[in-house]
């Protein structure tokens, strides 16, 4: 969309808001690159649901360990202090509320915090949930990172999700190429705008009603 942030800029926008010491799970796709944008020197511990805590930067091609992948099945590295555990323990961390933050991509987010991110149709040939439903309800905070609209220009932030839900009422904040939006009891409130983007532009590309930035 015209004037919005690049994907790397979106990831960096979100990464700046992660405090030191948080335990964070990054969903498959766009959220994964958030790890590359954490400000230098800030220790954030990344979790992957396949049993890894303390994920470091992507390895150089010649340093790939085929035994070490993340939930997106990409090769990763482990930082000093990292650890491995099995799937039941990994989801105990998730469902038990031990993650400070989970960042997921989404097809749609509704103004009540509903998220739809696993399938656009129940008649999908092979509908795949993976860890999305556990992550959506388990982490202390769920932030969504996604393009503000679809490639066809349709809003992803809606009054009611038309796609099957991943979880109801769980999204706390949305980062897009246009804005950062908090899900509050009063509704969706714009928290920040991308450079050169004004409130009216964001509202025009949003199905749900937005509240302006409160200063």
């Amino acid at each position: 969309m015209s004037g919005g942030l690049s994907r790397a800029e979106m990831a960096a926008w979100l990464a700046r808001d992660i405090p030191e010491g948080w335990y964070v799970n990054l969903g498959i796709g766009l959220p994964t690159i958030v790890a590359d944008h954490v400000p230098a020197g800030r220790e954030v511990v990344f979790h992957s649901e396949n049993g890894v805590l303390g994920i470091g930067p992507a390895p150089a091609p010649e340093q790939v360990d085929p035994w070490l992948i993340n939930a997106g099945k990409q090769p990763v590295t482990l930082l000093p202090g990292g650890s491995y555990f099995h799937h039941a323990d990994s989801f105990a961390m998730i469902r038990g509320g031990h993650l400070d933050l989970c960042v997921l991509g989404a097809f749609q987010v509704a103004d009540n915090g509903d998220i739809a991110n696993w399938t656009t149709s129940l008649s999908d040939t092979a509908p795949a949930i993976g860890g999305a439903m556990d992550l959506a309800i388990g982490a202390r905070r769920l932030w969504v990172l996604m393009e503000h609209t679809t490639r066809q220009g349709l809003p992803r932030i809606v009054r009611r999700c038309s796609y099957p839900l991943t979880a109801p009422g769980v999204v706390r904040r949305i980062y897009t190429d246009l804005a950062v939006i908090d899900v509050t009891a009063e509704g969706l409130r714009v928290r920040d705008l991308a450079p050169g983007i004004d409130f009216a532009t964001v509202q025009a590309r949003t199905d749900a009603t937005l509240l302006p930035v409160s200063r």
Partner: protein
Amino acid sequence: MIDKTVHSVAEALDGIADGAVVLLGGFGAVGQANALVEGLIAQGARDLTIVANNAGAGKIGLARLLAAGRVRRVVCSFPRGGAGASVFEELYKAGKVELEIVPQGTLAERLRAAGAGIPAFYTPTGVGTVIAEGRETREIGGRTYLLEYALPGDAALIEAWQADRWGNLTYRASGRNFNPVMATAARLTIVQTTHLVELGVLAPEAIVTPGIFVDRVVRVATPADAQA
């Protein structure tokens, strides 16, 4: 002397019956006991229910077993493969295999419950979604939960990094994944490993799966061979 090691994949797989529920460890390409999974083709069991996180990728392991027509039903969290339609997706579209989708954490917990003698538990995962349809819910402390049941297997096919003759196991890096959980959840737990070590080599603090959960261990040459 206790010796759980067997000399061949065929010996390791002896007794898995038609209609069995078979648990397959692994996540992505890591920690898949592909020598055992592919051994099931020669072993001959049909009409299998496969419980695994993924429904097979590429042309190896579970994908080969599916292509051989041995699988009636798949229970998994993420049936989608990589690029292009997988063997599973083609069979599923053609109505030749059934699918039960389970959220990944619920899958892990149902397996853990089976191994731990817990017949059922409540979980917040899936409430308010299609997963909850037709399922019993309960309010506890003001929050709604789904009732989920243990998911035991007749057999589990496990990949371990190291094993000894008592069946003690270690895993390498993210190769751990579902393996230790599934090892506890089956009546017959069968392990492939590349590193068969003497009893006492594995530090008692570092053993991840104690031998009590393991019935048979077979050495395979290398993980690469195992996946050839």
